[in-house]
């Protein structure tokens, strides 16, 4: 079992299928997660948001913007490309490596909130934790996802979940974001092998 296609594919996914979340829904979810982060981290003190490429990055950026609007706090933003930490190199082969950007403040002693679009097997998050470990030593690591679709293969759970969407393994969850795909939506589709 590999990674969910939704977070790996940089190309815009096809939008055929059942729409689960619309633009407005996604905006409200971001607002809610931003509030939750503020609440759980005493006003985002020492927090660093780290988006997991590809679609975790615009989500993290939106959260930074919302947190700043709500509480006038500037939360540092990082970008993590986990390609070189994947455990399926032998299965899937080499692919182009995206850009990783550590915020200037670093992550040592910080509370890092990893941000991704879909939580599925947990392997992406596992790779992201490995990658973080090589960059520095955070005080704590939390996880925020837009969608949790279940089917975990590792003991990993999210601290902030936008929406739980029960799925079958034969289905796939496509997250579309304005920044990468031209519009906001979450679509459930039957996987065509």
């Amino acid at each position: 079992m590999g990674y969910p296609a939704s977070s790996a594919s940089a190309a815009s996914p096809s939008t055929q299928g059942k729409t689960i979340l619309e633009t407005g829904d996604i905006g409200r979810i971001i607002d809610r997660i931003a509030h939750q982060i503020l609440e759980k981290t005493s006003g985002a003190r020492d927090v660093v948001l780290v988006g997991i490429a590809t679609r975790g990055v615009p989500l993290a950026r939106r959260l930074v913007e919302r947190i700043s609007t709500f509480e006038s706090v500037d939360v540092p933003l990082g970008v993590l490309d986990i390609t070189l930490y994947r455990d399926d190199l032998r299965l899937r082969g080499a692919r182009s490596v995206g850009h990783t950007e550590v915020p200037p403040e670093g992550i040592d002693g910080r509370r890092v909130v990893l941000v991704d679009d879909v939580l599925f097997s947990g392997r992406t998050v596992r790779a992201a934790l490995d990658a973080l470990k090589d960059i520095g030593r955070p005080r704590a690591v939390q996880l925020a996802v837009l969608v949790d679709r279940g089917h975990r293969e590792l003991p990993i759970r999210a601290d902030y979940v936008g929406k739980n969407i029960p799925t079958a393994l034969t289905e796939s969850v496509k997250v579309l974001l304005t920044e990468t795909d031209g519009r906001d939506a979450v679509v459930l589709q039957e996987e065509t092998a």
Partner: protein
Amino acid sequence: MIHDLLSAADLDADSATLILDTAVEMAAMADRDIKKLPTLRGRTVVNLFYEDSTRTRISFEAAAKRLSADVINFSAKGSSVSKGESLKDTALTLQAMGADAVVVRHQASGAPHRLATWVDGRVINAGDGTHEHPTQALLDAYTLRSRLGGIAGRHVAIVGDVLHSRVARSNVLLLHTLGAKVTLVAPPTLVPVGVSEWNADVSYDFDAVLPSVDAVMMLRVQRERMGEAYFPSAREYSRRYGLDPVRVSRLPEHAIVMHPGPMIRGMEITPEVADSPRSTIVEQVANGVAVRMSVLYHLLGGFK
């Protein structure tokens, strides 16, 4: 991605660009405290060096180790190779050891091609005779790109012993693939018969070329060539083809000075030029590790 990297001609513009792009990310990692990635954990990379080249071997070794591969250094000195074991028998040994990649440096042109017919693992040419040195060309392209902002449309002069230079051969191929214009500058004795088919201009007049180039790549010139009557004396060579401050002053402001090393100061390049801010010589070494990490990642990444 290709199976082996034997020649710079194995790379088209897309794959060369992919390797260079990935190398940028690999280079970023070098600034971190922990210079290590788990990517090639469990893979075995053999450095098979028939020719002394500490810098290239170390560069490949660092690259493989930073990607967590197991590295076996197999040097011709003090091994069964020096006892007369054939390249083929050595290849079969490496094959039996389960080498996922063999990085080979050899004094005979084409030895990596032969090796690739005998092992299943990836073969990376780390310099063969007077044939090619593709990873050197990649790191030179990387250096050019980072210093000049791009390669397409840039003009690079490659100066010196083109005839015996594997660096020149690989660079002419790769720079052309990436859209640069190349001028070879050398005394006529050090330009191969048959150069007309290369995608490069040839000039015997270094001074005429200087004002129009974005980069000058100086090749090492071995003193032994004098004995073979390629040129009369080191002094005359330096006067006509050496890079000194006077020639550097005639380069465009932005032009850079490159050398694949090891250089012979005073022969092809004066010390003040080698140590000037225009010189990328030290940077080239650092870039070498990142580029070789990228090559290992892309070749081994596709390996099942």
